[in-house]
């Protein structure tokens, strides 16, 4: 009996050994760093516990950073969700399948055009010496600067929406195809007109996908760094910029406030991804898979 148990134990060990690289990797490069990050955000250099870093995270500079990030993510995710859903619907309904799949491929490919190349693309068009800017100035004597600026919050919105839109299109098209024909027919059969179908059945069934889409888009914008960095440098404070600065030590302070900012960002992103996950799970369950 004892021997058998020992055998079993050996077997189990043999089986689990194969998972060690992964476990060690996750510990070393995911959990321990994050754990220490959280710990540091609560402790002083001396090792004492403190909330001081969180207090400094709520200083006006950082509040501004959070507010800008949330505003930017919220607005571009909103625009992205609704415009993207609308465009996605039109693509979904496109009668010619060839053109339809070309449009989907376009959305797929443009998601690769992000970060620095994207920001620079918009600088080429609408920067202070941009092609369109100059063209409007030379041809129509219309000076769009400084009323408009691509290096401003508006410019960031324009640029972020660029990567939000195709992502939403790609997310929502499966949701539209998940709307089963026979739900529509069943609704009609039970006396619903088109409007009543959408209000009672179509939109509620799309809702989890829409919410999931919004959350993913929000997280997508919230965590972005390269696009804004290229476009605005450090002029327009976003929270990711401020955390970045904390790394390079551009702001000399008691270490720890960067960690506090990071932990708060982590919580925001975590919430978004959790809701995103719940939404997609629900949508998957409803579509029967």
């Amino acid at each position, binding site marked *: 009996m004892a021997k058998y148990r020992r055998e079993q134990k050996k077997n189990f060990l043999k089986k689990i050994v194969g998972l060690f690289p992964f476990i060690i990797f996750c510990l070393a490069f995911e959990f321990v760093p994050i754990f220490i990050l959280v710990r540091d955000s609560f402790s002083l250099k001396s090792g004492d516990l403190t909330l001081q870093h969180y207090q400094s995270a709520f200083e006006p500079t950082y509040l501004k950073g959070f507010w800008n990030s949330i505003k930017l993510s919220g607005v571009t995710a909103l625009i992205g969700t609704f415009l993207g859903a609308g465009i996605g619907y039109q693509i979904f309904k496109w009668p010619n399948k060839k053109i339809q799949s070309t449009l989907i491929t376009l959305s797929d490919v443009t998601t690769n055009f992000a970060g620095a190349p994207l920001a620079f693309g918009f600088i080429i068009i609408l920067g202070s010496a941009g092609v369109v800017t100059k063209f409007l100035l030379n041809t129509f004597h219309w000076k769009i600067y400084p009323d408009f600026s691509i290096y401003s919050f508006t410019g960031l919105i324009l640029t972020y929406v660029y990567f939000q839109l195709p992502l939403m299109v790609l997310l929502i098209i499966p949701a539209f195809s998940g709307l089963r024909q026979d739900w529509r027919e069943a*609704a009609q059969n039970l006396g619903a007109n088109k409007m009543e179908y959408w209000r009672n059945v179509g939109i509620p069934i799309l809702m989890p996908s829409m919410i999931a889409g919004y959350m993913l888009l929000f997280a997508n914008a919230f965590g972005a760094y390269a696009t804004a960095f290229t476009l605005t440098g450090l002029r327009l404070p976003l929270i990711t910029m401020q955390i970045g600065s904390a790394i390079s030590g551009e702001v000399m302070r008691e270490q720890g406030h960067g960690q506090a900012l990071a932990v708060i960002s982590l919580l925001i992103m975590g919430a978004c991804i959790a809701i995103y996950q719940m939404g997609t799970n629900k949508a998957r369950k409803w579509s029967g898979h």
Partner: protein
Amino acid sequence: MAYLTLADISKNFNKNPAVEHFNLDVEKGKLVSFLGPSGCGKTTTLRMIAGFETPDSGVIELDGEDISNIPPNKRNIGMVFQSYALFPNMTVLDNICFGLRMHKMLKNQIVPKAREVLDLVRLSDTANRYPNQLSGGQQQRIALARALAIEPRVLLLDEPLSALDAEVRVVLRGEIRRIQTNLKITTIYVTHDQEEALSISDRVVVMNKAHIEQVGTPQEIYREPKTKFVATFIGTANEFHGSVCGKDSVKSAEFLIKTNNASLFADGDEVFALVRPEKIDVYSYKPENIDGNVLEGLVDTITFRGAETRLGIDIGEKVITADVPGKDVFSYGQRVWVAFDSNACQVLK
């Protein structure tokens, strides 16, 4: 006066006929089933009645009124979908209430009415669950309840049981029949399961390749098939291909089959003589004094099926299928004689 009339309905998809010259009268309160192989146009016909497809030609009348131009949501024809099509975002009760709300029923009457039909399908305790928390059979019954709640003028069921286990199917088809008879609701039931069609219908419409082969009571369909297709599609039949020879026999390559039913045909007409397996007696000796057909052969296959045993008997030219009582014992390769009455033999073109 028929309650639902389909007059010369035709429908093509991209020039391919899905339904051709379909004529049918359904009486009020009856259950009529559409039976036929896959792709023969059953669903298409049903969808035309529900209003999801428009016939290319022909008229559909319900209670004396041409409904061809009424949109589906105004027809008040209930439909149960093969996939149930329950709304996943609503509870069972909300699903059932949906149709009532769309029909602008008074608010305080909706829930009681919904509970009433839920009782009817014996699932009152599932009212607050979501469809994905129900078994297939339960979902099917909720779909039925939802369609019944609006008190439809006609109830359409498109292979409502095809996704379920054999056992559940038998129970549920009885349930559907019970409810249908109690409510006296005119029903069209699509299936490709012949046993299902024969067991629950008042009348059966056998379809093949977009047209109707035969309409009749289950007994008529089984006992007096009008076409070879019906005879072979419903149940099993042994067929002898040959030509009419005299008033009372069909001559095939090797056999002369005696029959009482050849008088409708002229001498020399190409026909099929058909015999059902259960009409055939099998003897281990050569039977004497039999007025009919006797053929000699060897037992080729034996399939025990409980109360009866199905034998395949090789008679040289072909293998004959015969059902014998389960207690009779035969062995492979045994020499036997098959006999069937000349009355039992149908002749069809």
